[in-house]
C-alpha cells in the first residue's frame, strides 16, 4: 500500500522557489506564466495495513516530521 503526502505552503506564505521558477520561465519565453507554486510530495510504501490506520499514520508523520504547521498544509491520499 502507498500513501501520498503532499506538503504545500499555506496561503500567504512566500514561496521563493515558485517565484524564482516563474521568473526563469518568463525569461525563457513562457510569457503567459502568471504564477508558479511548488509543493513537495512524499510517496511512502507501507507494509500492508488498513486504510484507516494509514491515514492516521500519515498524519502523525506530518506532525512529527514532514510538515511545519507555521507554513505548511498537507493532503493525504491512500493508494492501494
Amino acid at each position, binding site marked *: 500500500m502507498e500513501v501520498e503526502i503532499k506538503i504545500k505552503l499555506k496561503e500567504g*506564505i*512566500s514561496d*521563493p*522557489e515558485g*517565484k*524564482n521558477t516563474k521568473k526563469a520561465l518568463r525569461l525563457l519565453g513562457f510569457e503567459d506564466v502568471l504564477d508558479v507554486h511548488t509543493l513537495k510530495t512524499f510517496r511512502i510504501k507501507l507494509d500492508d495495513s488498513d486504510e484507516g490506520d494509514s491515514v492516521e499514520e500519515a498524519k502523525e508523520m506530518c506532525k*512529527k*516530521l*514532514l510538515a*511545519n*504547521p*507555521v*507554513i505548511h498544509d498537507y493532503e493525504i491520499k491512500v493508494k492501494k
Partner: protein
Amino acid sequence: MAKICVLRMEGTNCEWETFLAFKRLKGDAEFVHIKQILKESEEERFLEDYACVIIPGGFSSGDYVRAGAIFASRLSKLKKEIIEFIEEDKLLGGICNGFQVLVELGVLPGIGEALSEEKKAVLTVNDSNLFECRPTLLRHVNGGKCIFTRRYTKDKIVIFPSAHAEGKLVFGGEDTLEKMIENDQIVFRYTDSKGDYAGYPWNPNGSTYNIAGICNERGNVFGLMPHPERVFYSYTHPDWTRNSMGVYGDGMPLFKSILDYIDG
C-alpha cells in the same frame, strides 16, 4: 568543571570548530553522537551530565525534508529530559543548523513553556531561494536576558559570517514577535555597514524583523543563524587585513559568556 556536549549526527559539519572554540577557552567539551544520547549505541551518554549542549551547524541528514527537521524529530524522543534540562536553567544553544533544530524541536521561541508540542516558528527558505555564504553584520540588541551573549554590550555591532539556505525566521501566531520583543528575547539583528536595518543582502534571507538570533523566555535556550565559531580569532574575519584588531575575533565572547555561566 562543567561539561559541554557538542551534539552531532550525520551531516553535522561545524562541530570541529565549535568544539575548538570551547577548548581554546579551556572549556570541557566533548563530541556526542545523537545515537549515544538516544541509547542506540553502546557508548551511552546522558543529557543530565552536561551543563551546556550545543548543536553545531551543518546539514544534519542532508537537510532533507526541512533543515533541522530530522534531527529535531529524533531528539523529540527525549522530550522529558530536554524539558527538565531547560527548567534546570542549563544552557541549550544552536548555531545555524542547530538553530533550525531548536525551532523544529519547539524549544524556540520558547514562550510560556520550555517545549511546545506545536511548532511556533520556522526557519524557511531564503528569499533568494539559494544557499548563500556571506559576511553579515549583526547588532546585539539583547538587554541582558540571553545568557549566551552577556559579554557583548547592548548595541554592539559584530561580524559573524552566514552560510545557509534556510535562514528566514517566520513566526506562527500574530503577536509572537511583539511578545518576543517585550520579553527581551531578540538577541541579534542584521544591519548594514552604517548600522541601519536594511534589506538584502545585509539581511541575507529575508528574516522577519531582521532577526538573526533569539533566545527563549528564560534566556537559556539560544539559536543563531550566522557562525560565531568561524570568527573566534581575528584572522578569520572577512576584513581583517584592512581593519586591524586584536587577537580575538567577534565570536570569542559568545563562548566566553557560556563558560562564565556554567563554570560560575
